[in-house]
């Protein structure tokens, strides 16, 4: 998220404009309305409808998370707020237009560029940005025609955060369970023909560094007909280390260890969720049609103190066969208007005094 305020709010009736109507935009509007009783707030949004990733990111089987929309709707209904959909900063309006017209401009247009791995074969068929996959099942117009094939048994997700978890859960959930959600028709149709049996969730570092949170992991362990399988040799030493951890990481690690023990009730599962640690992708293997058949990984080892372990590449490699791959290694913001002082390396706005 990036935010920038041109602050000359000394006038009695500040007119503020906010670009981007996700949670950052709405929470910001709420605070401005509350702290500056004379202010008016105009919200500009690229899409026709508000709420950003709450609408188009949060998974359809998590409808409760979207309850926050009720609070945002109240803010939008405030007579001092105007919402303008279908207006894109950098295309329909420029930053200069806005700074001329408003006392303050707040940029909350999110971080919608997904990071690339920059390894050979990355442009091959069926190598999908997790973010586009999410847009596809959530009804984001620009992702409606995503070209993907689920006609394979093994899928690999690169990254171990909660977006990666969402993708794994949607791929492994029984279609009947998804039918009762507001998932898009086109994705439901495709998912109902999926042959995927096994989903790998691959991370650079180890079990103690995973980025997903415990709620999402617990949900995976409870998915019907799905067994979570760890490579037990990758969990060596984890038990000993977990004693020293703070509560959140400790509880997550304990659940990982518990799940790695054989579970009788899961013995007749037909699908598998496989978190794999200590692997960095180095190359996508493609067939003659340019479609993915597998991913080459470098085997990593960890170095450094427990609270800051870094992955170091070794000489060992592993090929993991895979008919589809999803890239989910993080997101960055973009410079949508050349007047925004932007650091292209960190993908953030360059801070200036008086601007935040």
């Amino acid at each position, binding site marked *: 998220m990036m935010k920038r305020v041109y602050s000359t709010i000394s006038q009695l009736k500040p007119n503020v404009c906010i670009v981007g109507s996700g*949670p950052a935009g709405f929470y910001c509007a*709420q605070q401005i309305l509350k702290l500056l009783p004379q202010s008016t707030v*105009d919200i500009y949004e690229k899409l026709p409808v508000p*709420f950003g990733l709450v609408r188009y990111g949060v998974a359809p089987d998590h409808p409760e*998370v979207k309850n926050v929309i009720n609070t945002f709707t109240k803010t939008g209904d405030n007579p001092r707020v105007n919402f303008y959909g279908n207006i894109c900063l950098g295309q*329909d309006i420029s930053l200069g*237009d806005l700074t001329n*017209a408003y006392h303050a401009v707040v940029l909350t247009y999110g971080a919608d560029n997904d990071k690339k791995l920059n390894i050979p074969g990355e442009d091959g068929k069926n190598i999908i940005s997790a973010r586009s996959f999410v847009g596809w099942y959530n009804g984001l117009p620009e992702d409606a025609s995503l070209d993907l094939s689920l006609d394979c048994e093994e899928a690999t997700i690169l990254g171990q955060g909660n977006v990666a978890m969402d993708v794994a859960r949607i791929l492994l959930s029984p279609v009947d369970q998804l039918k009762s959600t507001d998932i898009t028709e086109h994705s439901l149709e495709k998912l109902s023909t999926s042959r995927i049996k096994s989903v790998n969730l691959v991370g650079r570092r180890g079990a103690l560094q995973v980025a997903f*949170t415990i709620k999402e992991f*617990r949900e995976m362990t409870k998915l019907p007909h799905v067994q979570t399988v760890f490579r037990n040799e990758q969990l060596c030493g984890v038990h000993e280390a977990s004693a020293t951890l703070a509560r959140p990481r400790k509880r997550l690690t304990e659940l990982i260890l518990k799940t790695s023990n054989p579970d009788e009730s899961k013995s007749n599962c037909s699908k598998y969720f496989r978190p794999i640690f200590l692997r960095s992708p180095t190359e996508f293997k493609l067939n003659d049609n340019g479609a993915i058949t597998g991913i080459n990984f470098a085997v990593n080892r960890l170095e450094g103190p427990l609270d800051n372990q870094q992955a170091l590449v070794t000489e060992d490699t592993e090929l993991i066969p895979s008919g589809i791959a999803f890239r989910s290694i993080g997101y960055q913001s973009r410079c949508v208007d050349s007047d925004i002082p932007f650091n292209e390396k960190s993908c953030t706005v360059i801070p200036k005094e008086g601007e935040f």
Partner: protein
Amino acid sequence: MYRNIIKVSRGNVSHIRRIFSPSPPPSHFGLRRNYSNKTDQIKVTFKKHNGELITVSGKEGDSLLDVIVNNNLDFDGFGACEGTLTCSTCHVILKQEDYDKLPNRPTDEELDMLDLAYDLTDTSRLGCQVVLSKDLEGLTVQVPATVNDARSS
């Protein structure tokens, strides 16, 4: 004012309009709003991070989130998921003796969300899961300074 600044570069600027048509399916949970007569009121005090004390009343069976909603208390961002155990914005910190008095320990699901809260303590609970009973009369809970929504990745 906006009319001066919008470049009409799209054919569909007639689209400029208010659209607040949320699409999410209805929640299965929702807030209970129990308005009751004065007789069985239980006093609760919320201590804000700036030290300010706010004392209000609730009814037996109300959660602390219900009490906040029913009394229109304005705690920024509190209760984002409306009591459905999918955020941690209703985090409150109890005194040890009050924590021990509560009939139920937090469930795994509550602890999972609490683990994402800022300023987590051993006597932290989610406000939507703490239900008022007569022996909690006079309860004081602390509302931490910051709320941390569940996911940032």
